Every structure is written in C-alpha cells, then in structure tokens.
C-alpha cells in the first residue's frame, strides 16, 4: 500500500483536529504563562465552541480519510457535536466546583480536551486499531480525572477501581479484536460489517464478537458489568462524573453502533439474543436498584445503567429507526445528565461532598431556579413529554418493535414507569417537603447560564425532534 497522506486528510478530520490542536495549545500555554488558570479555561471553552461549529458545518459531507481508517463528516461530525456540547457545558460548570474542592489545577483542562479527542476518534473510527486508540485516549484521561481530587479518599478509590476494571475490560476488547482480525484478515470495521454474513458460522468469529461485546458492555456501563458505576461516579469529581456518564457513554455507544451494525447483528443471531437479554437486565436492575439509593449521585449512577439498557435496545433493533433513536437519545441524555450533575456540583459545598436526597428538602423556596431546573432534568430523564427524553425512548422502542423485539419494548416501557418513582420523588422532596437547605451552595452567573442552556435545548428538541432526526437520517 502506498498512500501519501496530504493536508486534505488532516483538514477532513475537522473537529478532531481542532480539539487535538487545542490540547497541545493548552500544554504549551500552561508552561509559558504564569497564573494560566483563567486563560486556560477560556481557551478550552473557545476550542470546544470552534469544534462544535466545525462539526455542525461538516455534518452534511460524509466521507473517509487517512486511507479509509477514519470516518469524516456525517456520523462522526454528529457525535463530535454531541461531545463538544457536553464537554462545553462541563467546562463552564467546572471552575466553581474545582475551587470548592481546592483542586483548581490547570491540568484539568488538558486532560478534559484529551478525553474529548479520544471520544471523537472513537465515534469516527472505521478501523478497530483507530477505535482502540481512541478508547485508550479517553480512558487514560478519565482514570486521572476520576482521581483528580487527590486528598479525597473516595476520589482515589474511584480512580483505582475505574483503572483496574477498565484495564481488565480493555483486555477483553483487545482479545476480541485479535480473534476477529484472525478470521477476517483485516481490522477494517467497514469490512467487518460487509463480510459478517460470510463468517457468521465460524466459532472463532462468534467468540471474537462475544469478547468485543464484553468490552463494549463494560464501557457503556450495562449489566452485568455495571458494578463499578456507582462507586466511580460517586467518588469522582462531580463534573467529571457528568462527563463520564454522558460523553464516555455516548462515545462507547457510537463505536458500538459502528462495530455491531445492522449487518453484523442480523447474521450473528446468538450475539443479538445475548444483547437483548443484557438490555432487559440493565433496565430492570438499574431502575430497581436506583429506587433504594439515598445519595443523589448513586441514584444517577444506577439510572445511567438503566439508560444504557434503553439505548442498547436501539442498537439491537438494527434498523434505521433504532439507529436514529440511539443518536437522538445520546444527545438528549448528554444534555439532561450534564444538567443534573451540574445542579449537584453547584449544591455541593466544601464540607458536603455528597448530596443526599433528603438534603434537598425545601430547595424550591431557598433556590427556586436550581430546583426548577433540576425538576426539568428529572422530568426529561423519566421520559415525560414534551421534553427530549421522551422522544429518545419513543424512537428506540419504535425501532425495537419494528425489528420484532416487542417484548424488549414492553420491558422498557414498564421500567420507565418504575423509574418515574425515584426521579419524581426528588421533585416531591424539593417542592413539597419541609426543610431548610442552608448548607447548599449557590450558583454563579456562568453556572446558571450553563444549566439554562441545556434546559432550553431539551425543551426545543422535545417540541421539534425532527430538526435532529433530519440530521441523523443523513448519517446512514
């Protein structure tokens, strides 16, 4: 093979090139500018905004670059938009939170942009090697970010647990890739999808796919590899948990949808059945365990397991409705979950690291804005119209019914009703229980603005879902 790499390849990367360039720029800035913290914050915001704009501009022109190893435009750009939007909100909410934890170190922004680079590479990968390196970039940055508040024991526990289990899951993923490469003779994901039917009967291929599935299920935090989720989300700095549960999950699902595309699932029937059982278990286990939680972060962690189950339903559907549903759902989930973690990060104080549900009693009187926004995010997470969360569920379940997985859609709907209990209980506690939450923090102007933005977006997406669906339709 003799492929000259030209500048066109680099330009075609678009948002990936912007964020990677931004990471390097921050490394340089940190070493030459004294007291670089405010400057680095604004540069990070700028880089992510430019990346989002770049993603939006390139969404209509799908193609490949670097000899077909990476996707450009279309699908990749859509997810680049999701990641930059999520990371932008997280960045805006971070400085106030990091000051409370006394860890406002400048490396935070470098690692955050490195993680976003990894996510974008994952969603753009057309080759298993590229996907793996994107995953590692994201994971390494997250391992460090999870332990960013070094003096906190729970943060150390979170980082250690995430690192050890993550490395273990990576081993499964890599072994699966080796076996798939052994059967196909190629690491290309496009080739994996097109030749899956011809190799579907080979045990080695199925074992390889099964091992890949283990790795993916760990990374999207679905049952049975969900044990790390509550401890990691609870211990990590709150905004990092916000990014892990949205950007990290979306990136893993973006690659999941690429590798386990419609062709692969339709020919590898046993894998599809296993995935259906795992999706149902995720919805059941996640929702039922979330009911009994007293800490808001742990509740959101189990709810994230349940949402992984809903989204997995859309992957299993293996049709256009399901795929559109997954893409829409991930955007909506990113907005509402970053919002929920954002409210928590504002309510936490230097002494109260972990907000319990009872701490929120009477919040509607002392912090009416925060309570209102939190209620909105909770309604959207439950899937109550007119918020975007409803249409996410609607599309993935429609896809599942179209593919003949009606039972999975029924489980999903029943479990959504169960989830209403713990999401709405939070609203009831905030609005109808007596209490004096004086120990909670107050929002800064930037903090409140970056919560109002996703709230407006959720409402807009819920009222006009077709704007996004028209975008996602172009990606296939």
């Amino acid at each position, binding site marked *: 093979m003799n492929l000259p790499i030209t500048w066109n*390849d680099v330009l075609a990367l678009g948002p990936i090139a912007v964020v990677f360039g931004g990471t390097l720029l921050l490394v340089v800035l940190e070493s030459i500018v004294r007291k670089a913290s405010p400057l680095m914050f604004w540069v990070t915001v700028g880089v992510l905004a430019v990346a989002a704009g770049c993603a939006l501009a390139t969404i209509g022109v799908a193609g490949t670059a670097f000899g077909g190893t990476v996707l450009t435009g279309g699908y990749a750009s859509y997810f680049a938009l999701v990641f930059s939007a999520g990371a932008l909100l997280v960045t805006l909410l971070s400085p106030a939170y990091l000051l409370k934890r006394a860890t406002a170190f400048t490396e935070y922004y470098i*690692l955050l942009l490195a993680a976003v680079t990894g996510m974008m*590479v994952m969603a753009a990968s057309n080759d298993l090697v590229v996907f793996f390196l*994107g995953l590692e970039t994201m994971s390494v*940055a997250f391992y*460090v970010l999870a332990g960013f508040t070094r003096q906190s024991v729970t943060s150390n526990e979170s980082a250690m647990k995430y690192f050890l289990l993550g490395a273990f899951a990576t081993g499964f993923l890599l072994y699966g890739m080796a076996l798939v490469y052994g059967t196909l003779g190629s690491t290309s994901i496009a080739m994996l999808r097109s030749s899956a039917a011809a190799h579907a009967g080979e045990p080695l291929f199925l074992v390889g796919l099964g091992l890949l599935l283990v790795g993916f299920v760990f990374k999207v935090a679905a049952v049975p590899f969900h044990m790390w989720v509550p401890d990691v989300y609870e211990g990590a700095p709150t905004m990092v948990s916000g990014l892990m549960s949205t950007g990290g999950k979306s990136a893993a699902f973006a690659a999941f949808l690429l590798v386990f595309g419609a062709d692969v699932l339709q020919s590898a029937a046993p894998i599809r059945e296993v995935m259906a059982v795992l999706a149902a278990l995720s919805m059941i286990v996640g929702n039922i365990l979330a009911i009994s939680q007293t800490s808001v972060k742990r509740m959101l962690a189990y709810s994230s397991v349940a949402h992984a189950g809903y989204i997995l339903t859309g992957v299993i559907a293996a049709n256009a409705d399901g795929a559109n549903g997954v893409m829409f759902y991930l955007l909506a989930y990113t907005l509402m979950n970053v919002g929920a973690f954002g409210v928590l990060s504002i309510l936490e104080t230097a002494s109260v690291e972990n907000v319990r549900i009872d701490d929120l009693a009477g919040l509607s009187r002392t912090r009416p804005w925060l309570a209102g926004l939190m209620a909105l995010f909770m309604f959207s997470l439950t899937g109550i119209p007119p918020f975007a969360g409803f249409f996410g569920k609607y599309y993935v379940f429609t896809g599942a019914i179209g593919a003949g997985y009606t039972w999975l859609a029924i489980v999903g709907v029943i479990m959504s009703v169960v989830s209403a209990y713990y999401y709405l209980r939070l609203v009831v506690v905030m609005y109808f229980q007596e209490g004096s939450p004086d120990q909670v923090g107050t929002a800064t102007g930037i903090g409140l603005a970056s919560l109002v933005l996703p709230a407006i977006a959720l409402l807009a997406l819920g009222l006009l879902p077709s704007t996004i669906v028209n975008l996602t339709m172009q990606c296939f």
Partner: protein
Amino acid sequence: METFDIVFYIFATLTIVSAFVVVFTKNIMYAAFSLLFTFIGVAALYVLLHADFLAVTQILIYVGGILVLLLFGVMLTNNVVSVDIKTGTLNTIPALVAAAVIVGSLAAVFYMTWSTVGEPATAPTATTRAIGELLMTGYALPFEVASVVLLAALIGAALMARRTRKP
C-alpha cells in the same frame, strides 16, 4: 528429528521450566529473574514462527522495559527482597475448574485437525520494513493518536505522583 525440532524443544523447555520457577519460588528476586528466561523463551518461539518483528518487540518491551521496571520496583521498595512471598494454595475448587477448562480447550486444539497449520506457500520475508511502511501510510492516524495516549498518560502520571500543592 530435525534441527528445527531440537531448537523448538530446547526453547519450549526453557520457557516452561522458568515459568514454573516464577510460580513456585518464594524469593521475589528469583521469580523476577526467571521471568527473564520465560520472556526470552517466548521470543525465541516467535522467531521459529517467522514472527521476527514480534520477537524483537517482545525482547525490547518485556525484557528491556517491563522486567527492568519490575526489578527497580522490587529493589526500591523496602523489605520486599527479604520477605518470603506467599505461594500457598487458595480457592482450590474454583482453581481446579478453571484449570480443567484450560486443559480441556488446549487438548481440543491439540487433537482437532484445524490446529495444524501448514508451512506458508511462499517463504516468509522480514516483516519489520512492511510494518514500518504501513505505520507511515495506511495506519498513519493510529500512529499519531498513540502519541495523544502517551501525552495524556505522561501528564496524568506526573499529576498523580507530584507532591501535594495549592492550586
């Protein structure tokens, strides 16, 4: 028995015997040094399989990197060299099950017909040059992304290991 077979059995014995020493010795330094012979034995097996690049990488990374790191770790940690490490047996029944599964699958591989791979039709050539060319052409992007992983890991390690400081 040809020369090839003799060489194979010499290195296979070296690998297995040194691996046994790693598992059963009570002295951590002996274990670390016999691990060296296990790695070299495996590298030699790669050479016999015509995987020249893999063999060199095995020696560079495992012998040159990981093993040296391990030895430094042992030497720089107080009271590790003199302490006997535990080599007793725990969880006998799960271990037996796991061992039975592994032995069973190895036996299946050994006795099934698809385990015997014939000699390649054309004589294998050196792979290092081809791998190098691919890294600069078809796999240029993964090669570059690997540098981001290393950058993030370096910054992370420096951050984690640094003394406590004020922001």
